């Protein structure tokens, strides 16, 4: 199991290590700065940290020595003249536009074991970028950016649309599936040269009735893919939980899952496609835990039934939520970490049966990521 956990927060990057007395904070980097996305590339054991500075914009840093030294990299930049649809009541066609400026790197993933220097970055307002040199330079993926359906995308929570989930097929790195809020599920099977819009069965109650099933406006909050069986994908959607067994071509809605099907985060067991975890909240209009109780829901039969897990979690007066990148699972599938909007951090070593509260004093948590590296100091 993992012995190192990285936690990106509104006020810095906290690295925790597991020792005999439990999980403790081992180091703090970028103290005071919002660290909104993290990615460990196990091809070279490097750690990437995305900062979203309120005044000075998005920054990207990499360390190859566990944080002793950080190297600031180039960030993806939208080309001159790039635009996105501006929200407007103007019925004109084509729709009014506004300049595209990178607001946030919302997702960052290694492009596959057979492409050790390559990265994918998903951004707000909706551009997918690729680096062939570990983040030293970036190029906007034109085939996706140029799709006419992109002008139908819009922001959900954030001002503009964004790519929050990048699933690189562990068996075929040319096959990548994206989750976009609010822009649906997109797939390439040729490394990004062409894209298809997927997701039959997803449902958007926030749209007029005739547009409920329109694929290009679906608000997937988070998309995950099973490592051992990449055709199985789980979506925590704005309108509930959806399950696919055909690589996102079609989805089945799961209408019963413990106290609620609303939420942001989802994890799937890397070795068991039928096991997945969710962190429910009441509903769209009331984004707090049901009855003030933090729980995690788990299915082990592909969504046929759910358990509600609460051991070790606060069961009264709990009003924080877990955002889409605030839940992670380690390689073994037994260890889970969960970070909340008010800095609560819980870790489970047994698949969620019991959780240990590690801290309730951290800043707002954006992202938790287990490291595959083993702690060299661990005795």
């Amino acid at each position, binding site marked *: 199991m993992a012995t190192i956990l990285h936690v990106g927060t509104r006020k810095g990057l906290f690295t925790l290590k597991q020792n005999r007395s439990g999980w403790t904070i081992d180091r703090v980097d970028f103290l005071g700065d919002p660290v909104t996305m993290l990615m460990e590339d196990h091809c070279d054991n490097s750690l990437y940290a995305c900062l979203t*500075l*309120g*005044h*000075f*914009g*998005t*920054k990207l840093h990499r360390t190859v020595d566990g944080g002793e030294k950080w190297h*600031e990299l180039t*960030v993806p*930049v*939208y080309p*001159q*003249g*790039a635009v996105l649809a501006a929200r407007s009541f103007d019925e004109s066609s084509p729709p009014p536009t506004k*300049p*595209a*400026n*990178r607001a946030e790197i919302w997702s960052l993933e290694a492009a596959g074991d057979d492409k050790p220097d390559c990265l994918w970055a998903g951004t707000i307002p909706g551009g997918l970028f690729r680096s062939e040199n570990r983040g030293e330079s970036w190029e906007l993926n034109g085939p996706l950016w140029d799709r006419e359906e992109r002008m139908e995308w819009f922001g959900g929570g954030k001002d503009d649309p964004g790519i929050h989930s990048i699933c690189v097929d562990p068996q075929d790195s040319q096959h990548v599936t994206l989750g976009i809020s609010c822009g649906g599920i997109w797939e390439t099977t040729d490394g990004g040269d062409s894209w298809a819009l997927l997701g039959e069965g997803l449902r958007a109650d926030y749209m007029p009735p005739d547009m409920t099933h329109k694929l290009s406006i679906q608000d997937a909050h988070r998309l995950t893919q099973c490592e051992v069986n990449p055709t199985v994908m789980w979506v925590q959607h704005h309108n509930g939980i959806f399950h696919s067994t055909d690589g996102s071509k079609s989805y089945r809605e799961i209408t019963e899952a413990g106290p609620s099907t609303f939420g942001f985060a989802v994890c799937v067991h890397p070795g068991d496609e039928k096991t997945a975890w969710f962190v429910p909240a009441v509903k769209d209009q009331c984004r707090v835990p049901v009855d003030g109780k933090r729980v995690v829901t788990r299915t082990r039969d592909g969504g046929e039934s759910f358990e509600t897990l609460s051991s070790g979690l606060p069961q009264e007066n709990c009003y924080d939520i877990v955002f889409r990148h605030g839940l992670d699972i380690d390689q073994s599938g037994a260890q889970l970490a969960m970070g909340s909007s008010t800095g609560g951090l819980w870790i489970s070593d047994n698949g969620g049966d019991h959780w240990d509260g590690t801290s309730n004093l951290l800043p707002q948590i954006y992202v938790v990521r287990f490291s595959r590296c083993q702690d060299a100091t661990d005795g």
Partner: protein
Amino acid sequence: MPHIEFTSQLSQHLECSIGAIEATTLREAFDVVFERNPKVRSYLLDDQGAVRKHVAVFINNQLLHQRNNLEIALPPDAEIYVMQALSGG
């Protein structure tokens, strides 16, 4: 010759030299700064080349209102201050 200074908050993130600068427009002044340290560009300007929403530029105590117009002429004695807008929590 115009003179440029930056908020000390910027030096928390990267080196940004201050002092006299040979320029007749704000764009020329920024270009000199970016030539000295190319990384400064993304801290001050957005992807489309406009001054960032939360960065405030003062020229002789006058706030620059048109964020996408860097062609503004600089008087020879221009004092340029690049500050951060007050926001956050």
